[in-house]
């Protein structure tokens, strides 16, 4: 099972996603800001990241690009309420493995990281 960094400025989203992913056997690290995400990623070296896009200090897209700059193999699943087609295109171009629309279906969320722990990109 994976160590997953959950990045979201919503306490509620972090709480729900933690509960779902812990129930699936993963261990969780949390960050509530973009800068916190980059710091935790550098220090904790998680296996994968679940990343929100709308955050006050740094956008999730900037975080995604930074993480991929730090580690080109960084495995990032984006989970956002911003379901514009242009957003999905930007997320894909920035190297995310998967885009999940909020509120994320719990089984799809678990499946996203089950796929990741098997090492295959979506």
């Amino acid at each position: 099972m994976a160590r997953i960094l959950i990045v979201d400025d919503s306490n509620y989203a972090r709480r729900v996603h933690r509960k779902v992913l812990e129930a699936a056997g993963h261990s969780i690290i949390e960050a509530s800001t973009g800068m916190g995400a980059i710091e935790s990623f550098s220090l904790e070296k998680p296996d994968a990241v679940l990343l929100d896009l709308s955050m006050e200090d740094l956008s999730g897209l900037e975080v995604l690009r930074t993480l991929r700059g730090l580690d080109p193999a960084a495995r990032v699943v984006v989970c956002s309420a911003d379901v514009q087609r242009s957003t999905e295109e930007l997320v894909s171009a920035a190297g995310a493995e998967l885009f999940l629309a909020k509120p994320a279906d719990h089984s799809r969320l678990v499946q996203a990281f089950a796929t990741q722990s098997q090492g295959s990109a979506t």
Partner: protein
Amino acid sequence: MPIVDMDALTELFNVGLHRAAASLSEVTSQRIVVDLPKLWLLPIRDIEVRLRELLAGELATVHQVFSGAVAGDAVLLIEQDKAASLTNLMTDGDAGQGGRLDESAREVLAEVGNIVLGACLSGFGDMLHLKVTFSVPSIHVDSLGAVLQALAVESNEDQFAVIAATRFRLSDRAVEGYLLIAVGAQSLERISSALTLHGG
């Protein structure tokens, strides 16, 4: 006041407003970013004081009544000049010229309100697994006092309101908007229970 998980309620509005932004983006072919909303939940008698701290001058409002498992009023409130700016941005300058909320700008704003309120209310219904139906929205340009008067309902139960403040960002500009949802105590209890049941 019923106990409500404010983190869950904020996320509910966040998802609803982002759905609205996605719908507006489809209509305008522009990328629209929405900030995480800031929320206040308060008895309806206290909303005037709060809104006077947030908004000034004449307001452009789009008002929609909803009913079903939860019932109440949904109102999009934007200061008049900002509403004109928003319509101007959304039409590449065709409407809302000179900061005026003229007939064409009002038509655009009515559609914006229709999309925002419809996306939010249907999003709430989907996420909370509650069936909600809503009326055709109506647009008004009025003082805050007149807006509040339109919300006044004769009811035996306590009335509450959620005010969500957000920003719509497009074309390097930002326009502040406020979404007000007014419901009775029973509807608020249902929302709270559904948040607990379907949240986590």
